[in-house]
């Protein structure tokens, strides 16, 4: 007479906490999750194909729109791939400025993550605190290049213009103030019993599984694997500055929260050192052509973005445009494991897991 059945529920693509246009097909047993199927592609713009029809210097604005929250590291990754392909040497000052901006961008991206993650779990106020600091970073970006989100700050062979007057002092003011602000977020969350209950043990993934799924970035480091491209294959000026790679053993949402908070502190440390050591001199490699023709060949370059390893694969046939582009998107790879991470949890855990993966659908769908 009575029977039970699983409930199929469709979460997204229009949903307040899927961080964009992610769609999840959930199978629920009451409130317990039986299966999660991520369905992506709603934001696919064919960036990789578009890039094949643009000359090399026209591609960075497309890269901005991959991971629009962490656009500086996207730009950096692509440009370094081009520079590797064409054999261009970047002046030291430009490398330092690129490092500073990439780290500022990492902080701003992590602030978006923290704010939205906390908002998903129900703590509204953290969101506004985070966006207050992010606003300061965006103001710095605006002062440097005129844009705030999709910045397109770097150029092939360096940067376009030197730092505007007062920019270094502004950045110093920000990094002096920022550690205190991290304490404010921690005051609201770290010792909050509800926050601990909602994040500890939720979305667990072991180190082995994380490696097998190809996870990178804070997701991997929170499972205990201290892999970071900035250390293993340093680019820009990362070999000139001291910083630690924070890792945690627990592999759950709380561990990832701790790792990202510590990464923000390390970023602040990197910026401080880079500002101190900032050399003078040229900011752009000389004698560059707009319609450059790198020699035929292929190159793969990785950078450590806020979400993980961002890979840029370029093939040149000696022409003005790339013959083939492929961008490795950390959001895409990390999202693949959402089924493993949320199995057996409750509906409320899904939003915690989406938040902790820190996806940007522009990056995921490309």
């Amino acid at each position, binding site marked *: 007479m009575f029977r039970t059945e699983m409930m199929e529920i469709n979460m997204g693509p229009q949903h*307040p906490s899927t961080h964009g246009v992610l769609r999840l097909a959930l199978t629920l047993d009451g409130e317990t999750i039986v299966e999660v199927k991520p369905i992506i592609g709603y934001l696919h713009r064919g960036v990789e194909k578009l890039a094949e029809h643009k000359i090399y210097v026209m591609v960075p604005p497309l890269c901005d729109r991959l991971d629009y929250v962490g656009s500086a590291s996207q730009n950096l990754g692509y440009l370094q791939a081009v520079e590797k392909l064409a054999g261009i040497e970047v002046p030291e000052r430009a490398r330092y400025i690129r490092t500073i901006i990439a780290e500022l961008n990492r902080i701003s991206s992590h602030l978006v993550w923290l704010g939205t993650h906390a908002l998903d779990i129900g703590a509204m106020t953290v969101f506004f605190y985070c966006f207050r600091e992010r606003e300061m970073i965006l103001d710095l970006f605006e002062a440097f290049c005129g844009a705030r989100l999709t910045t397109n700050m770097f150029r092939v062979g360096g940067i376009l213009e030197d730092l505007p007057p007062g920019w270094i002092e502004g950045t110093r003011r920000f990094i002096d103030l920022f550690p205190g602000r991290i304490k404010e977020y921690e005051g609201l969350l770290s010792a909050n019993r509800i926050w601990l209950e909602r994040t500890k043990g939720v979305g667990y993934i072991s180190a082995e599984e994380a490696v097998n799924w190809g996870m990178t970035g804070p997701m991997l480091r929170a499972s205990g694997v201290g892999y970071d491209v900035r250390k293993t294959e340093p680019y820009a000026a990362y070999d000139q500055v001291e910083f630690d790679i924070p890792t945690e053993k627990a592999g759950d949402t709380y561990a990832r929260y701790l790792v990202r908070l510590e990464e923000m502190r390390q970023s602040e440390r990197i910026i401080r050192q880079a500002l101190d050591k900032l050399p003078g001199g040229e900011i752009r490699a000389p004698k560059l052509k707009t319609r450059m023709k790198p020699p035929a060949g292929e190159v793969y370059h990785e950078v450590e973005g806020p979400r993980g390893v961002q890979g840029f694969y370029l093939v040149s046939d000696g022409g003005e445009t790339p013959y083939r582009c492929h961008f490795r998107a950390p959001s895409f790879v990390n999202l693949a494991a959402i089924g493993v991470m949320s199995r057996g949890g409750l509906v*409320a855990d899904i939003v915690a897991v989406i938040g902790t993966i820190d996806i940007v659908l522009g990056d995921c769908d490309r």
Partner: protein
Amino acid sequence: MTTDEVIVNLVVPAIKIAVVLGVVSLLVAYLTLLERKVLGFMQLRLAPRRVGPSGLLQPIADGIKLLIKEDLVPDGADRSLFVLAPILSVIPAFAALAVLPFAAAPFEILGYKFTPFITDVNIGVLYILSITSLGVYGIILGGWSSNSKYSLLGSLRSAAQMVSYEVPLGLSIIGVLMLSGTASMVGIVEAQRAAGMWFFLPQIVGLFCYFVSAVAETNRLPFDLPEAEAELVAGYQTEYAGMKFAFFMMAEYVNMIVVASLATTLWLGGWMRPFPNVEALAFLDFLNWAHPALSGIFWFALKVFLILYVYIWLRGTFPRYRYDQLMRLGWKWLLPLALVNIVVTGLVLIIKQQG
């Protein structure tokens, strides 16, 4: 019936009901504004301030907006229940106002006595508990009839949550009833005057249990699972718009006022000023020159406001509990705590009687 009896039995109560309903409806509108203002203050942002002087007309603009919105009924919804549900949730909320004692001293107008509460029944506390628990029907029916899975999940959560938290809520009150020896709301306040202290001193555990369960009963953060916007979009309200949605919101805010008023009456001395038996502090009843009831209403409103402020504060501070954690908290912590409170209160009373 003589004219006099008609006036005393029908007209006077009708006027009192009209006044209470009118004032509380207005308060509800401004409670939403207060909430937005306080949250804005806590979150470093500007709250509404465009409509009227510093946003004071915002609730009216909101009300007009909700009134003229299209009245949608989704496809496949159970039409009659869908319309009935918001009404079912708002009526019990307003009905609970009937026994709240806002002050004691009656007004005399044209020779008729107007007590500053609608009525005082000898089972006032039980009346409030029973009538407010009816509100869950509106939520369940609303979630079920709207033919949406998110609404259904939200209403099932709320059924479980509100039924579970009614148990510690009811038990936490028993300590006060034991001390006062009456379930009449006016009687409880008078008992606090006789005892020489507000009951939150001996019954702080009861107040704690009551407050936590009351937050859960009114579906407010950190227990707002039935409408958890991050997971269930808006829970049982997802498919509602316009005035039907406004009814749900009104029910929530009236319920907040009711539970805050109940806490005020039971634990915080109702309409009495602090230390009601200390003559030196009589200046605190500074509205007595106009009418003693005005002082009472002032103190009552102040206490209710403070509790409501804590409600909003909680919303600004805490993340949301998960469904299973909420159940665990209710059954494994609050319920035993409330039971222990009853046992200890009983033991102390027995020892006092013996000695």
